């Protein structure tokens, strides 16, 4: 009997104590800066190195490049950049390997859609996804002074 009564005491005490419910849909949740939400792409920074497509464990990124329209500049610029968000697992590896931080995470986590087609994110969508872009992107993989990545 003692244990039962003690238990009843705990629940009775909880009756009047402060509640922990988030007021989520009414008050938006703020995620910490490192939160991994859907990516933002800065097409100007992208050098079409294909590292993100190669590191992606679920092969959800495909990108193509074209020669730089400015004849004096070297390298390529990104032409199409498609992210199949149906299979993206938000593992953060694409932003980790990106040498120019062209693709970075945002704090957007409200990603539900009515149609699977809506989950196909192209270059236009990704470059317009500018809200809540993550500031600190590479953590321990930060570029050391003098350039060049430590790891891939």
């Amino acid at each position: 009997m003692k244990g039962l009564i003690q238990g009843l005491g705990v629940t009775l005490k909880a009756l009047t104590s402060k509640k922990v419910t988030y007021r989520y849909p009414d008050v938006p949740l703020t995620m910490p800066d490192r939160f991994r939400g859907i990516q933002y792409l800065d097409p100007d920074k992208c050098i079409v190195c294909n590292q993100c497509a190669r590191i992606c464990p679920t092969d959800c990124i495909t990108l193509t490049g074209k020669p730089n329209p400015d004849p004096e500049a070297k390298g390529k610029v990104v032409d199409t950049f498609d992210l199949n968000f149906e299979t993206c697992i938000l593992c953060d590896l694409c932003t980790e390997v990106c040498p120019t931080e062209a693709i970075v995470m945002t704090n957007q986590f409200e990603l539900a859609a009515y149609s699977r087609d809506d989950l196909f994110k192209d270059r236009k969508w990704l470059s317009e996804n500018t809200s809540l872009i993550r500031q600190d992107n590479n953590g321990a993989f930060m570029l050391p002074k003098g350039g060049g990545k430590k790891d891939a």
Partner: protein
Amino acid sequence: MNELIQQTFTWQNGLIFLGWGIVFLFIVLGFVTYAIYFERKVIGWMQYRHGPTRLGPFGMFQTIADIFKLLIKEDTIPKKADRALFILAPVIAYVPAFAVLATIPYTSTLGFADLNVGLLYYAALSSISTIGIVLAGWASNNKYSLLGGMRSAAQMISYEIPLVLSVVGIIMMNGSLSLRTIVEGQGSNFWEWNLFPQIVGFMVFVIAAVSELNRTPFDLPEAESELVAGYHVEYSGFRFAFFMLAEYVYVFAISALTTVLFLGGWHPPLAALDVIPGLLWFVLKFSFCVFFLFWLRATLPRIRVDQLMSLGWKVLLPIALANIFVTAVCLEIFSK
């Protein structure tokens, strides 16, 4: 109301009875609606949540919306179910639940039938609901619901006996089975209630009553973590609502019965507080009983079938019998 019932039965009187019945039905439905709301709120608060908040002020219309949802749901009957019994079962479960309410006196004047076998009537009718549950379990043609129905039958038989025996002490003290006489036999001070002379009987009654209600910690027939939903696993829509309704009407009935039998009915806890109307006292005590049930549900785990059986037969039944014996001896010694 008593005079009304004593009159000879005519068409006119019959219609008045019917009218009162319908009024009372709506009161009970209102109670059920807000008991469910209150239960969700209380359990929510006990779990550091708010409970329903979104529909109406403080979520007051949540249950109404839930009932509406059940009403407009598709009514499904499994192909291999026993159709007639499947349809009949919720009705059998519900009708006795409502019928037992007729005999409960709320104040010295408010009440329906003052039967001289009121308590017996209650015990007899409330056992019929079990048939509804067993039928539902059988007719669904589902293994989980069959197990739930069988458990329910076993539980019902085991706990009906201590429930009735635990109140025999009160019947002996009052010399009557009429609930009105039992309340009148209790005084206007809390120490004059049946609760104290019959404290052992009260404890047995509470345990057996919770078990009769199939509520935590005795909710084995519908144990959702084992039997998914027990006997009503195949029911949907309004048929399911009927089972829910029956369950909550029994909450009403048992709480009212506890108030009447042990907590002095409409009597105030102190004679000095007599100015406050009796109905209010009744409602307060009644609400406490309802709250207690919800409180148990928020706290306790479920008991096991074999433990339930041994608790009923090996603990509660002997205690209830001993209580009757001791009451009889005391009555014999002190009343002479």
